[in-house]
């Protein structure tokens, strides 16, 4: 148990952040984080500590996020779709975060994982590959696709904002 608690204390923020970046809604993060550490607690005896603990934690987080993504998809089916993200005129921090979430949501989970590990966690392709158990070339191809998605979503958003501003100008004049 002390070993488990040590892992928990050391890596709680990492797991929390990973789940968030993998698309787990903020309101679900406490439950999802607990899910991850319940798995850790149950399987700690099997972990041989030869590989990095963060690799293991991320793999578990990815699975939990994937399960929740499926559940969320079911929920959206019931309600007929997710709420569109709120639009805001001034690009403050919250709005930028909303833009980031919108772009990440447009990616597959695999692309999202690579993109956030590379761009936000600052990991290299060689570090990400074993984490996701894929070749480095696959990491690079997923990163390329994720970047295309990221850029496309932001470009579309900017175009929409310009359009809205144009309409506003028409109303003013």
């Amino acid at each position, binding site marked *: *148990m*002390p070993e*488990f*608690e*040590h892992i*928990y*204390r*050391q*890596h*709680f*923020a990492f797991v*929390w*952040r990973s789940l*968030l*970046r993998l698309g787990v809604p903020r*309101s*679900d*993060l*406490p*439950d999802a*984080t*607990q*899910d991850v*550490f*319940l798995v850790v*607690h*149950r399987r700690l005896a099997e972990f041989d500590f030869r590989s990095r603990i963060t690799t293991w934690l991320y793999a578990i987080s990815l699975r939990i996020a994937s399960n929740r993504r499926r*559940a969320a998809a*079911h*929920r959206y089916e*019931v*309600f007929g779709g997710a709420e569109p993200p709120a639009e805001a005129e001034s*690009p403050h*921090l919250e709005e*930028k*975060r909303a*833009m*980031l979430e919108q*772009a990440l949501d447009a990616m597959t989970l695999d692309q999202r994982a690579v993109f*956030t590990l*590379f*761009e*936000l966690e*600052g990991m*290299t*392709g060689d570090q990400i590959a074993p984490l996701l158990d894929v070749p480095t070339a696959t990491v*690079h191809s997923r*990163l*390329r696709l994720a*970047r295309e998605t*990221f*850029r496309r979503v*932001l470009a579309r958003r*900017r175009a929409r904002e310009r359009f809205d501003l144009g309409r506003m100008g028409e109303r003013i004049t």
Partner: protein
Amino acid sequence: MNTKRWIDDASDADELEREVLRSGLDEGPPAGAESEVWRGLLTAIGPPVGPPVGPGGGGAPVPPAAPVAAGGAAAKAASTLGTLAKGFAAGIGVSVAVAGGARIIERPAPAVRAIPTVSQGAEAVPATRPAAAAPGRAASTSEPTAITQTERAQARATDSPPARAVTVPVPSIPESPTSALEPASTSSVAAFPLLEPAALRKSQLEQEARLLEKARAELRSGALAAAFATLEASRSKFSLPELYQEREALAIELLHRSGQRTAASERVRAFLARFPESPHAARLRGFMAESR
């Protein structure tokens, strides 16, 4: 491929793209989240044994184990009510952490799903709850308290198919503290979770979690008869439990510890058929393996 990070200056990204990426850098857990999740974990897996580890990772200090364990279920129950409400409303599975070993996933989605090896009544796990308990259950909850445990066990054997085929060893802990088929109901009465006030459900969940914590503590301390009585109280009070998996896992453990290994194994099989991904699965399989 250009492997320079877009978030860096002088990358291929434009200014807005960089700013958007940077907005995601500082998103850490809010204050108190680490302690809250830890309390939920303690509730699920039991208090730590041995010297506590300091906060180290930047979170708040861990309160003493016993009070945390005692209050954890209620706190966790309260904290998960939002999730519960959403899950109920959507008719999907919901998750709650409680005493006794792990997380519970009740009322799996979709609403009705066929599961082999258990009777049809158990296969249909409703997304909605009937307004009143089924007649059989209502009869069992009105049992006089003076009835002996053995009598109760014999009576239970008549409404619990898995337990009926089991020979009860002597001395025995009554063989079916909870029915493996308990939450089954195909009633199409209006959706209970949507009609029930949230506060009432919160209160019920907390009470249920407390009872199961008590049963777990009694079980682990070897007070098997007391654990049985507590589980019975839970069964009587919560005929449609939120924490069904947890209660059933404790009942199976009780059977196992009281020497009724065959009955325990049968219940484990039924449990695993119904909840193959349950967090209890590994521990319950251990009971089955020991019985061989």
